[in-house]
């Protein structure tokens, strides 16, 4: 828990430093002041660095304070729920164009519902998957004129 708590400010400090270096390495402008594109992000990264360091010390002061949400995110079936939702989303991105909207959506929504709602509620899952996939296809493609694959 302590490692997770402290890693966030450290990550922010690292991000600010990388952002600062990247700002200084921005290409020079051919028009006007050559450094003009750099000033805003560089100033921003310096302020961000200062706040990240303050945040680091704030967290250090409260290192023993429990964050119940971090505990919850790591316990029970929560990590799996989050992981699979993201994984199914990534798979959806890959199958969306090759399989077309309707088929890929039926697979994606069906998989999500069976995983989240449980396979014992299979009838509800199937009805919701099929009806919602068709409704969304009809609403977006036919009524709203969105070009879907």
């Amino acid at each position: 828990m302590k490692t997770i708590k402290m890693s966030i400010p450290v990550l922010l400090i690292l991000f600010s430093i990388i952002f600062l270096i990247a700002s200084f390495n921005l290409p020079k402008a051919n028009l006007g002041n050559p450094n003009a594109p750099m000033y805003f992000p560089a100033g921003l990264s310096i302020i961000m660095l200062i706040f990240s360091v303050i945040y680091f010390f704030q967290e250090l002061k409260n290192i023993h304070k429990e964050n119940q949400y971090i505990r919850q995110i790591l316990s029970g079936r929560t990590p799996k729920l989050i992981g699979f939702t993201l994984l199914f989303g990534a798979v959806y991105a890959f199958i969306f164009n090759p399989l077309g909207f309707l088929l890929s959506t039926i697979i994606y929504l069906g998989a999500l519902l069976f995983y989240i709602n449980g396979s014992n509620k299979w009838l509800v899952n199937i009805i919701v998957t099929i009806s919602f996939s068709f409704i969304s296809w009809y609403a977006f493609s036919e009524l709203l004129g969105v070009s879907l694959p």
Partner: protein
Amino acid sequence: MDVSSFMDGLSIALEPVNIMWIVIGGFLGTVVGMLPGLGPATAVAVLIPITFSMNPVSAIILMAAIYYGAMYGGSRSSILLNTPGDGSAIAATFDGYPMAQKGQAGPALAISAVASFIGGIIAVIGFVFLAVPLANFALKFGPAEYFLLMLLTLSAIVALSIGKMVKGFLAMMIGLALATVGIDTQTGVYRFTMGLPHFSDGIDFLIVIIGVYAIGEVLYNFLNIDQQKKEKKKVGKVWFTKDQWKRSKWPILRSGPIGFLIGVLPGAGGTIASMIGYTTQKQISKNPEEYGKGAVEGLAAPESSNNAASVGAMIPLLTMGIPGSGTTAVMLGALIMLGLRPGPLLFEQQPDTVWALINSMFIGNIALVIINILLVGVLVKILDTPAKVLYPIIVLLAFIGTYTLSYSTIDFFLLLVFGIFGLFLKVLDFPIAPLVLALIVGAEMEQNFRMAVLSSNGSLGIFFSSGVSITLLVLTILSLFYPLIIKLVKKRNDLEEDQMSKSS
């Protein structure tokens, strides 16, 4: 007030197609706003794609209807389940839920709907009189004033995240950093695109918004999805007694204008408006001990106030192009996508659009009070729908919405990245509104800053050169010290209370 523009706007708002969108938007907003954990910003973010094929006037009318629909909806779950749809509905749990527990769910729902309606109407009237003078005033703003106004808005929204200001600032910085990605419009230099052509136009803020609000919220709700218990509520007759009305009418009429003014202020929003509405009412009440135990006034006041704030928040958005809250920031993003540029010129160039919107808010509030009272049975049934079925549907809507932005599935990955980012922001208790606001106004803030400096040959003195800019600077500094002042006042009050209890 320009009467002919007002009448033109009224006739546009009364077109059957726009009335249809007001009703659909109000209903959809109510439904999404009602779902525990999902508030108006999520409602607008998820439903943005519906507006893309529409003409801009109908789109803005629909979005506004979704917005205040969600404000109505947020309190349904507060009253019935003690789980507010979002921050602005928290105050409705204080007395709304105890009323429902005492078997007065019906009257509580009716009072909340009527209070929201009256609050909304008071605010729309305020809007009619305040918007044009403010737009005219904003016309005098140059780049320096605009930069300072954006700075004030951002500082105010950060300062209001009391107790987590450092996190608020960091969220704001991250938003501003994300806004720097893409081609610099003044010099044509590619910044932080990592060589990916997809980022040349920057990171689409709507993807960030949908990711953080829709996917992030759903992932966050997974934390206790298995603990969510169903609570069946008997609603009964959705109306109130004469006595309940007598007790509520003044709190409603008092809290409406308060909420409206708070909504107009940058950074403040429905949450603060409803809290102030509630505490003010409690302070002036003759029976403050009844509050929190089901006092009808304690429900009426915040409900009137938060809905008035939602209308008030549209004023800085439309007159100056500066969103004052997370939800209006989402709306600004969608409006820019539709080619509408909110700001003082909108009132000059497209008065029909603005007045159609204002009139649609009158009609929308009427439609919503009818929806919320007549369709209460349907709404309660929707509230019964298991979250485990609703969340996958919301995730899917987020994907479809993202696809309609650029017709590219690459953005699906970005959506997931920002979804997980949103989850961590919530888990680590970072306020999200400063990030979203900074992301949306960031690019323009930088451009205004550079234009101001350029026009003064590199001198920063331009930011102190006019009365308006000095006022804005002073307000920014004051807003940053606001939490400190609150802390000192609280400390002094506690000390006084301590001394009083010791002496007694």
